[in-house]
């Protein structure tokens, strides 16, 4: 559960609750951006580190790609996180 997965912000879906669609390893999922304390629209195209449905911090692309690879190499634990992420229904 402590895994944090990088994703790229695609579009804002709810301004009031700061929800955005984020592309995480090809999965598009709603993520809450409220912890970043930034205008969600300004984050479109940015990489964020996602933990339990919330963006925890903004990171650069180099960091994001390295982290993704590290996670992919973890194998089953990462696959499990992705499965959970797909099934998750943040509203």
């Amino acid at each position: 559960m402590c895994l944090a997965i990088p994703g790229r912000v695609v579009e804002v879906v709810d301004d009031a609750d700061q929800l955005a669609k984020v592309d995480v390893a090809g999965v598009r999922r709603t993520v809450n951006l409220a912890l970043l304390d930034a205008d969600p629209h300004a984050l479109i195209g940015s990489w964020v580190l996602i933990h339990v449905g919330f963006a925890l911090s903004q990171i650069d692309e180099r960091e994001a790609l390295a982290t993704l690879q590290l996670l992919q190499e973890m194998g089953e634990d990462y696959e499990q996180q992705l499965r959970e992420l797909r099934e998750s229904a943040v509203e």
Partner: protein
Amino acid sequence: MRFVEEFRDAELGRALAAEIRSLVQDGRTYKLMEVCGGHTHSIYRYGIDGLLPDGVELVHGPGCPVCVLPMGRVDDGIALAHEPNVIFTCFGDMLRIPGSHGSLLDAKARGADVRMVYSPLDALAIARRNPEREVVFFAIGFETTAPSTALTLMRAKAERIANFSCMCNHVTIVPPLRALLDSPALEIDGFIGPGHVSTVVGARPFRFVPEDYGKPLVISGFEPLDVLQSIHMLLTQLADGRREVENQYARVVPWEGNPRALAVIAEVFALRPHFEWRGLGFISQSGLALSDAYAELDAERRFSIPGIRVADPKACQCGEVLKGAIKPWECKVFGTSCTPERPIGTCMVSPEGACAAYYSYGRHAGQREATRENALTGAGEAYP
């Protein structure tokens, strides 16, 4: 993936390992604790321990939130799951943690409505869809996870979702470190500080480690070269006679942390006078409960929870593992009666648990040499 190669460059890794060797004084041993379960995982996945000289020993710390949960709290959660009309939600890692009479998965098999969620917001969504049911979210985690629970509770309150509540087991990172440093049995020379927790709390809260205890701490990233570099930084401090908090992971961790995340933690939670940790016992001001402003959403006030204290199973030495007093393979039941398929202790259940990491990557006693060949390549394949 040229970006990645910088973090994996085997030449760079070996050069760093050589520098580490040059910093080690003959005959001296260096015990370095990696606080975070994510680091434990990296260390055994990439065979980092195999690159270190014999005098440098890595000790696993208490930074796996599932692992440190005492059995009594698991039993309390299971009791809550069996309450009539309750939908009990928790993260996937919690499901197989053994309580005194089985796990949450067993409770589910016996008819309790237990559901795994990826996010506390998923639990809130379940509450919205099932207004006639009571939906409880069993919250665990350090400061990494607590802000997400806090924001979810803020939303539940704002939307007046009356059938949602939270059984809070959030813990904080500083008190257990202090408890370990106060323990006379354990002589740690330095700490590899946690990465993700520090994105929230920053580097500042760890200053007590050098200031009060005279030990260095380096906040570290999770890449194999990050961990090696952090070990190098710790040994350099020790060689130079410096004792400081340094931030190897500054590309992600700001010195001040995430002020917004800290603010929501402060808004929604209050420190408990004391909280029990598996293996470490009661530690004062180490656990979070819902603040009075959020009392209505507190499952511990809404339901009657047994609150029974249960001793850990006698055969299980998770407590010793969590304190770094023994290595996973030194536990009497490691890999025999305690395996990831049939765990006795928490450290074997969670993917971040030290025992699960050792078991998965086959890093048992005496394997240091064997890992040297494959270090940094990630070739230490998990057992199928």
